[in-house]
C-alpha cells in the first residue's frame, strides 16, 4: 500500500532545527520517521545539505566513539544450526536419537547376517517401538531438564508435541526405510505399526504421562509380540499383511484421542 510521506518543507525545517514547525507536525514527523526508511534517508540528506553544524557534531561524536568500538570484542558467531535444531528437538535428545539409530542398524545387521536361517525379521519386530522411545524422550521429565519451563511456555501443548514427534519420525523412518528395503519387508508392514505406536504413546501420554505410556507400550510389545515370536521363531499374525487394517484403525484412533484431548499436553501431568 502507498503511504503518505513527509513533505520536503517539513524535513528541511526539521533538519535546520526550525522552531516554527507546529507541534503536531513534529509529532507526526517523528512517528513517521520511526518506521519509514525512505524518509530517514531524505532527512539525513537534508541534514548533510542544510545543517553543517549538525553534521559536524555527528562527526565529532563518531570520531570519539570509533576507538571504543574497535576495542569491543565482536559478538561470537551465532550457531544458527543449533538454534534451528532446538526448535525441533529437545536439546538433550540427540543421544537418544543416536541410540535409536544404532538399535535400528544393529537389528538390520542381525537380519542380514541371519538371513535365510529363519523368517523372523528383527527390523519388523523393532520398528513399532523405536519411535516410541524417541517420542518419550521428547516429552519426558527425566531427559529434559527444562521440562517445567517448557510446560509453562505458550508454545507447549499439542503443537510442540507434534513438532517434536515429527522430528523423531523424520530421523527414524528413513533408517527403517533402508532397513525394510534391505530385508525385503513391505513398507506398509512396518510403517503402519510404527505410526500407530507413536500416536498411541501420545494418546496414552495425555492420561498417564508420555514417559509412562512409552514404558507400558514397550513392555507390552516385548511381552506379547517380541518374546513369543523369538520363542516360536514365527512372525505373529499382527505383523502379517492381514493385520494392517487393525494398525490403521489404531493409528486413526490415537490421532483422534490426541486431537480431542490436546489441552492436556500443556500441563505438568503429561511430562510424567
Amino acid at each position: 500500500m502507498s503511504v503518505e510521506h513527509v513533505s520536503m518543507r517539513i524535513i528541511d525545517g526539521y533538519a535546520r532545527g526550525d522552531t516554527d514547525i507546529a507541534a503536531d507536525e513534529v509529532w507526526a514527523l517523528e512517528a513517521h520517521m520511526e518506521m519509514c526508511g525512505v524518509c530517514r534517508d531524505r532527512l539525513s540528506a537534508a541534514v548533510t545539505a542544510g545543517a553543517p553544524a549538525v553534521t559536524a557534531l555527528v562527526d565529532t561524536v563518531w570520531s570519539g566513539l570509533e576507538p571504543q568500538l574497535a576495542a569491543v570484542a565482536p559478538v561470537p558467531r551465532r550457531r544458527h544450526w543449533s538454534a534451528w535444531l532446538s526448535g525441533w528437538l529437545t536439546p538433550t535428545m540427540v543421544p537418544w536419537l543416536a541410540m535409536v539409530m544404532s538399535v535400528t542398524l544393529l537389528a538390520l545387521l542381525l537380519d542380514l547376517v541371519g538371513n535365510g536361517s529363519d523368517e523372523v525379521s528383527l527390523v519388523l519386530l523393532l520398528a513399532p517401538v523405536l519411535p516410541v522411545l524417541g517420542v518419550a524422550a521428547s516429552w519426558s521429565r527425566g531427559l529434559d531438564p527444562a521440562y517445567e519451563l517448557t510446560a509453562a511456555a505458550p508454545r507447549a501443548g499439542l503443537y510442540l508435541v507434534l513438532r517434536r514427534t515429527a522430528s523423531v519420525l523424520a530421523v527414524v523412518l528413513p533408517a527403517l526405510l533402508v532397513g525394510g528395503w534391505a530385508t525385503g519387508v513391505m513398507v506398509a508392514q512396518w510403517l503402519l505399526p510404527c505410526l500407530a505406536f507413536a500416536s498411541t504413546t501420545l494418546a496414552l501420554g495425555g492420561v498417564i504421562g508420555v514417559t509412562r505410556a512409552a514404558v507400558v507400550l514397550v513392555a507390552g510389545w516385548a511381552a506379547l509380540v517380541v518374546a513369543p515370536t523369538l520363542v516360536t521363531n514365527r512372525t505373529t499374525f499382527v505383523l502379517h499383511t492381514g493385520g494392517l487394517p487393525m494398525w490403521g484403525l489404531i493409528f486413526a484412533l490415537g490421532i483422534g484421542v490426541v486431537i480431542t484431548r490436546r489441552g492436556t499436553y500443556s500441563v505438568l501431568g503429561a511430562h510424567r
Partner: protein
Amino acid sequence: MTIGKDHHPMPAVNAADIAPTAYAWEIRATGLKVGVGRKHLAVDGLDLSLGTGVHGLLGPNGAGKTTLIRALATVLRPAGGTLELLGEPVGRMGEYRALRRRIGYLPQEFGYYKRFTVREFVEYMAWLKEVPKADIPAAVQRAVERVGLADRADDKMKALSGGMVRRVGIAQAIVNDPSILLLDEPTAGLDPAQRLRFRELLQELGTDTCVVVSTHLVEDVAAACTNVVLFAEGRLVFQGPPDELASVGGPEHVGDSPLERGYSALLLGPERGRRTEHGRRTEHGRGTW
C-alpha cells in the same frame, strides 16, 4: 505527497499499549483448590486478589506455595473454585497460549541446558514464549542486561556459578515482558550483594507488573515487597502490607525482627483465626494496600 510503496505502516504507539485493562486484579482466586497427586489438596479453598506490585508469598515448607505458583503458571489446573488471570478464567482444559505469553515463570527447580550459552538459552526460551522473531535479539539482550549478566552472555551455562544460573532463570522469566511474573524461591543461591540487586530489580518490575515471589526468607519480603501473602496448609492466613504483619507480633513471640515475630504470631499464635478474618477484610476493602 506519496513516494512509491513502503512497508506496512505501524503506528508509533500500539493500540494494545493504550487499551484499558478489562480486569480489576491481575490474579483473582476464589475458593481455589489445587490437588497434588490423587487425593491431597495442596491449595484448599484460597481466596486471593493480587494487583500490580510485588507480593511476597510466605509460608512454612509444605504450605503449598509451589503448588499455588504452578497453578498460577497454568501448568497445574484447579481442582475446584475459580481462578482468573488477567481477566481470563483458567479452567481444567485448554492451552491458554495468549495468556501464557503474558506470564513469566521461574520454577523452584530451574532446569537448563548445560551446553547452551546464556544468550542461546534465553533466546530459546523467548522462542518458546512466542516472542516475535524480529524482537528476540533485543528482548534477550535487555533481559540479560537487567540481571547483570551482559558480560557473561556468551559463556556456556555450565561455566556459571549457582547464583548466575539463578539470574539466567530470572532473565528468561522477564524476556517476554510479562504482566504476571511468578518467581519460586528466586533468591536461593544468591550472595548478599546479588540479593540486594535482585530486590532493586523486583521493585522496578513491581511498578507495572504483578510480581509474585515465593520465599521462606522473611527479610526478602521486608525489603522488596509491597504486600505479604502468608500461606499455611493451603489456606490464606494473612494478606496485607509488611508493616501490618510486623505490628501483629509482640515481644513474646519468636523471632529476631518485627516481621519474624509477626510471622510466628500468625502461624503459631492462638489468635490465628481472628487475624485470618482481618486479612480477608483488608482484601475485600480494596485499596488499603
